[in-house]
């Protein structure tokens, strides 16, 4: 590989981690809101939590953990000089992202069918705690869903670069940073899942 431009892979990763910390604080803020309102409206939160589908939530947890495994394996693959496996593993990750979003679509559709969506008559006329719970649910899982879409698009773009040979065993920090973003998506879900689906 040519060394026309000086590269600083550690600096690139450090920058990525700094960005991930801002993401951590972004979702952290939503979790703080959740905790404060859980303390204020424990009964409404409990009732709201029981309306969520534990089977779908658990399935999505397994799907995201698997997607993270495949993303981490893609980094191992490119570092050991296997671009074809790298692309295949990234396709697996992106496939899992698709499955996640399809399941999320069915989950949200079921909520909409029950008249649960932001500003719906049921929530407007119901107890305040209920609408707070579902507002936070849609905001948090929606923001997380946007991250899934962005992460999937990012890994698709990076995968095409691996396929074209512009990312290689010696020059793969872009792939590493892309997968770091993907793992963050997984990390956020690791907390959303118990907080919204399990403990209430």
């Amino acid at each position, binding site marked *: 590989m040519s060394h026309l431009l000086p590269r600083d892979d550690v600096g690139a*990763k450090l920058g990525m981690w700094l960005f991930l910390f801002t993401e951590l*604080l972004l979702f952290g803020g939503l979790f703080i809101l959740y905790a404060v309102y859980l303390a204020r409206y424990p009964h409404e939160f409990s009732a709201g939590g029981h309306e969520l589908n534990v089977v779908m939530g658990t399935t999505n947890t397994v799907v995201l953990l698997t997607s993270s495994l495949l993303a981490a394996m893609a980094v191992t693959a490119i570092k*050991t000089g296997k671009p074809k496996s790298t692309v295949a593993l990234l396709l697996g990750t992106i496939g899992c992202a698709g499955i996640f979003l399809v399941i999320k679509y069915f989950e949200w559709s079921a909520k909409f069918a029950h008249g649960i969506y932001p500003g719906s008559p049921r929530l407007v006329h119901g107890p305040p705690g209920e609408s707070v719970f579902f507002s936070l649910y849609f905001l948090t899982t929606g923001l997380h869903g946007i991250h899934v879409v962005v992460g999937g698009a990012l890994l698709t773009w990076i995968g095409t670069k691996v396929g074209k040979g512009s990312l290689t065993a010696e020059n793969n920090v872009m792939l590493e940073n892309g997968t770091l973003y993907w793992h963050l998506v997984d990390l956020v879900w690791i907390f959303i899942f118990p907080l919204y689906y399990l403990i209430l």
Partner: protein
Amino acid sequence: MSDHDAHKEGSVHIVSYGQLVAVWVSLLLLTVTTVAVTRVDLGAGKVWAALAIACVKSGLVIAFFMHMKYEARLFRIIFFVALVTLAVFIGLTFFDVLYR
């Protein structure tokens, strides 16, 4: 196999497929545990149990999938700073909300 280039700057540490799969299996077992624990009526205990398990799962993802274990110390220091910042936000928020 690739230990010969371990002297290069940056993380050329390579985590094997086997290690990654082992981490994934642990994550799945922890997921089963957290679902099982929260199906039992433990009162407030299940909240703390679920959060503790989520923290362990995050630790595994960060250490192995995200290679934090193999990065320079600086990465762990700034990670610690970010966690402390979040903890301060949480602490001050509840100091306000609980004693209002």
